[in-house]
């Protein structure tokens, strides 16, 4: 947490003043939404004024944001003035500018373990071109702070995530947006960038300020260039991994100060729409919390003549309502977020809530109120899911209460979760502080199909990996990886990078082991709590997993017979990225309290060596003549003065 020190002071000040301003402006709104009982009784008129007040600060926020980067964009002063035109023109011109588009979405999936998974996604699309070097100065929905970052650092794709807690794949299934514990950042730069490392260093420092995170601790010792695992997710087929940088900070602690700047990037802030639900004391009182920002160029149309920028902000939370609810299995929006929804974000073109009711087709498992007739089916992560849809842009969603508080009450706790086909775990074996062994276990639960996976390991330099000890075994047999990319570490410069393409046989466990040696560091290189241990970032496993839908071979009841002989190609497999646990490894430590003693003692030993040799080299052997006594010497002096021969 000490990392937060180097947030620019000015930014902090602006943040404080901004939150103060918002707080004073929206006092009314927060009070209405904090007390749903009151909100129920409120007449229609007050809700409308509430809506207006939520619009205004949102606009004001958009005006305020550019000032954060004033030092960077002196030329943009004119544009900012344009931006600062009266709020009503901006809001009314929302329909006149088809160039950008904002969508918000919340998916709630009751998990089999009794937890509830809530996944927010906010998507801002902007039809503009940063790539050709033209200066973009007019920002509407797209946050200016990020837009400037993209254009200044020639970023083609940026993916950043902050996660607190570890996603338990075996209990919760696959997440929609996987992320490793701590902070993760990967960026594709445009091929016009010459000094990629320098740009990356600057970018991490700027992002550190924007997200109030310790991203400035990303340096060459934890940055790698994966050759295969991280391909661009947007358009463009540049795959030269010189322009890719990937770094994780497994020790990063995610908290409110990261959430606030993240919420500020939303067009409506946290004033209206789904973002109203994001109260930090609830979001961080959860088993898993992950927030992310993904920026990438996407096609505007099917011919891909124009490109636009997509900003996807996601927030995934897993609430443990089972233990906090005194054994009663029910949840509601209010119980989860201590808020209810009253409206969509006025700037959003679409605002929807999806509730996963796949396990509950007839309503025998749980009861969902208020009921909706809108249903949607989608193939998510290779599995056909059914969702109840609530469209917040329609007034009748909110009913007569003018507020939406979804509620699910379980009737029975039966049913089993679809086991994920791919699962991985990792641990350190061995004892003592000299050597160790990293074990990575990858489970393929598919009954009859094998599939390849890409394993990426980035290990800090102070765990010296011995690649000749690498073994890959599945079902007790040696499983030779078909592709290995290994970059050995350089002390204090760069980490180890190990990428492998491994074929996982059906229904098997594949174990990857590699031995390492623990280095003794300089005493200044240890963290303030050295005996806590050092973190090693998660392994990343990227795979094309055969789809559940395709697995279902006797699926003839839905489809006609002539269509179902060959498995449908686009549904046959789906991309999954899973992260293993980060490792905590202890290193041998020197005694931190005695640098002076060590310097003194070692120098003494060297001096003993030097002294004894010097003694023998410079002196010669002589016969020791006994020294006359003092009295004798004095007597001799006196005798010499007297002119008498001295005593012998």
């Amino acid at each position, binding site marked *: 947490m000490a990392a937060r020190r180097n947030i620019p002071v000015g930014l902090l000040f602006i943040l404080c003043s901004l939150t103060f301003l918002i707080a004073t402006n929206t006092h009314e709104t927060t009070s209405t939404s904090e007390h749903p009982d009151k909100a129920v009784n409120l007449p229609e008129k007050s809700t409308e004024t509430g809506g207006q007040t939520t619009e205004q600060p949102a606009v004001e926020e958009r005006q305020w944001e550019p000032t954060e980067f004033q030092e960077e964009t002196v030329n943009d002063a004119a544009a900012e003035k344009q931006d600062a035109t009266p709020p009503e023109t901006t809001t009314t011109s929302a329909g006149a500018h088809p160039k950008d588009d904002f969508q918000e979405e919340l998916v709630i999936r009751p998990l089999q373990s009794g937890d509830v998974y809530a996944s927010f996604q906010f998507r801002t699309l902007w039809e503009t071109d940063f790539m050709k070097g033209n200066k973009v100065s007019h920002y509407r929905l797209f946050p200016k702070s990020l837009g400037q970052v993209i254009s200044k650092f020639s970023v083609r794709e940026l993916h950043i995530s902050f996660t607190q807690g570890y996603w338990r794949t075996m209990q919760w299934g696959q997440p929609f947006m996987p992320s490793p514990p701590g902070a993760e950042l990967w960026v594709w730069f445009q091929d016009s960038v010459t000094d990629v490392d320098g740009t990356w260093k600057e970018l991490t420092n700027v992002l550190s300020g924007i997200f109030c995170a310790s991203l400035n601790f990303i340096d060459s010792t934890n940055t790698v260039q994966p050759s295969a695992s991280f391909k661009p997710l947007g358009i463009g087929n540049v795959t030269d991994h010189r322009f890719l940088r990937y770094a994780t900070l497994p020790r990063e602690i995610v908290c409110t100060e990261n959430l606030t700047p993240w919420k500020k990037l939303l067009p409506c802030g946290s004033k209206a729409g789904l973002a109203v639900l994001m109260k930090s004391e609830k979001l961080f009182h959860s088993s898993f919390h992950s927030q992310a920002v993904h920026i990438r160029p996407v096609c505007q149309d099917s011919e891909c003549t124009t490109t636009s920028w997509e900003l996807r902000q996601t927030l995934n939370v897993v609430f443990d309502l089972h233990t906090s609810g005194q054994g009663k299995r029910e949840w509601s929006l209010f119980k989860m977020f201590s808020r209810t929804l009253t409206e969509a974000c006025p700037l959003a073109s679409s605002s929807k809530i999806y509730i996963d009711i796949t396990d509950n087709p007839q309503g025998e498992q749980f009861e969902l109120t208020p009921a909706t007739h809108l249903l949607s089916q989608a193939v998510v992560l290779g599995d056909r899911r059914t969702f109840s849809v609530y469209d917040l842009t329609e007034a009748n969603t909110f009913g007569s209460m003018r507020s939406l508080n979804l509620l699910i009450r379980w009737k029975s706790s039966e049913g089993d979760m679809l086991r994920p086909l791919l699962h991985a775990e990792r641990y350190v074996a061995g*004892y*003592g*502080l*000299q*050597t160790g062994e990293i074990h990575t276990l990858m489970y393929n639960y598919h009954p009859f199909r094998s599939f390849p996976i890409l394993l990426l390991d980035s290990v800090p*330099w102070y765990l*010296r990996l*011995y*690649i*000749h000890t690498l073994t890959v075994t599945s079902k007790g047999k040696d499983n030779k990886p078909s592709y*290995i990319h*290994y*970059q*050995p*570490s*350089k*002390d*204090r410069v760069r980490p*180890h990078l190990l990428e492998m393409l491994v074929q996982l046989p059906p229904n098997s466990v594949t174990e990857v082991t590699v031995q390492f*040696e623990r*280095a*003794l*560091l*300089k*005493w*200044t290189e240890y963290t303030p709590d050295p005996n806590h241990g050092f973190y090693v970032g998660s392994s990343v496993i990227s795979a094309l997993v055969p789809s559940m839908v395709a697995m279902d071979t006797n699926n003839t009841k839905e489809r006609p017979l002539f269509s179902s002989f060959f498995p449908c190609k686009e549904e046959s497999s789906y991309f999954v990225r899973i992260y293993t646990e980060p490792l905590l490894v202890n290193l*041998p*430590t*020197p*005694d931190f309290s*005695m*640098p002076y003693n*060590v*310097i003194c*003692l*070692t120098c003494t*030993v*060297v001096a*003993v*060596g*030097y002294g*004894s*040799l*010097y*003694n*023998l*080299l*410079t*002196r*010669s*052997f*002589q*016969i*020791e*003549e*006994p020294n006359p006594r003092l009295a004798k010497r004095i007597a001799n002096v006196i005798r010499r003065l007297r002119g008498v021969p001295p005593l012998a």
Partner: protein
Amino acid sequence: MAAPLTVVLIVAVTVRACLFRSSLADLIAERVEVVSPLNAWKRVVEGLALLDLGVSPYSGDVFHETPLIIYLFHFLVDYAEITFMLADVITAVALYYAVQDYNTQVLRQQKFALEAERLPLDSLELIRSPRQMYYIPLKVAMVYLLNPFTVLSCVAKSTCGLNNAIVALFILSTIKKNALLSAIFLALSTYQSIYPVTLCAPAVLYLLQRQYIPVNVRWASFWWFLLQYAFMYLGSLFVIICLSFFLLGSWDYLPSVYGFILSVPDLTPNIGLFWYFFAEMFEHFRLFFLCVFQINVFFYTIPLSIKLKEHPVFLIFMQLAVISIFKSYPTVGDIALYMSFLPVWSHLHRFLRNIFLVSCVLLACSALFPVLWHLWIYSGSANSNFYYAITLLFNVAQILLVSDYFYAFLRREHHLTYGLYLKRKDGSEATLVLK
């Protein structure tokens, strides 16, 4: 004479072969006292594995061997055990013949001195007889081969054994008056680990002595010989360095091997003085102390060669000892090399002052190394200071041992000139002091 040597060789090889087959081999190969980051067999294998993966072994910080070692083990990796045993045998045999030749040399010089009646009468006690010296070469070979330090080093497959073999061949060729081979082996051992470069001083002094060229800057033949030797040495060094460049096609190995030796980035504990000192060093003093410690190794060459210019072989012993004490990544294999010379100086025993204390300390420290390592690393009941303390003590004992031998050598030389029983002016028995 060949029969006892053969027996010793067979015993040594048997001991090593047994240990290679036992479960102790893996344990020994992990010991930090036996292998250093510079010469661990694990790292040689890692370098070969990296080469197989198409990655330059020098792109990482695990492999620090020279390209010739890669080239050697590229072919011999399956016969590594035999190679290391062979290296030890070569060292022992080379030392055997070198010491044999040196002893005949010593006897001849002694005979000349006696005939010229240069020796004082009462120092005849110090005269060495051929009978006493008969078994010295065998003892040298035995001390090297059966020294537990050498055995451990060989069983751990530390490439230190190869370096020792090269140094032993260098000593042999020097004593056999072969200047060219001496220069080549010196270049080779310099190429392997920099520090043996200081051995050029004793080599030149010995060769000059054997060719009856006085060490005098005004003599043209002195300069001519110096130039010849320097040319042979630098020429072969140049050839070896270029050869290794062509083996891998890059100069990457220079910073990775020599930069690693000189700048001490790897602080893995060993029996030397560097690791804990530089782990605890204040960052802004690091470079200063690094220079001081490295200069310390090379510096003793000049005063030692001035003082011992008449006795180049003892100078070799002193240099080897200084290197193995003060080098940046010492292992017990280095100590074994200079310890094998101790039988050559067995005639100095009457002048040694604290040999009993020193040998006790050395034995105790050797036993305590694994104990304190276990307490620190495995049981966690001690900390790094314990192990550090024992390295300090071990080094003090080595320093005392070496300086004691140096003292005894100088004292014997003094007695050979001035007589054994020195008297004061007043005729009473005198004591010798250093002044």
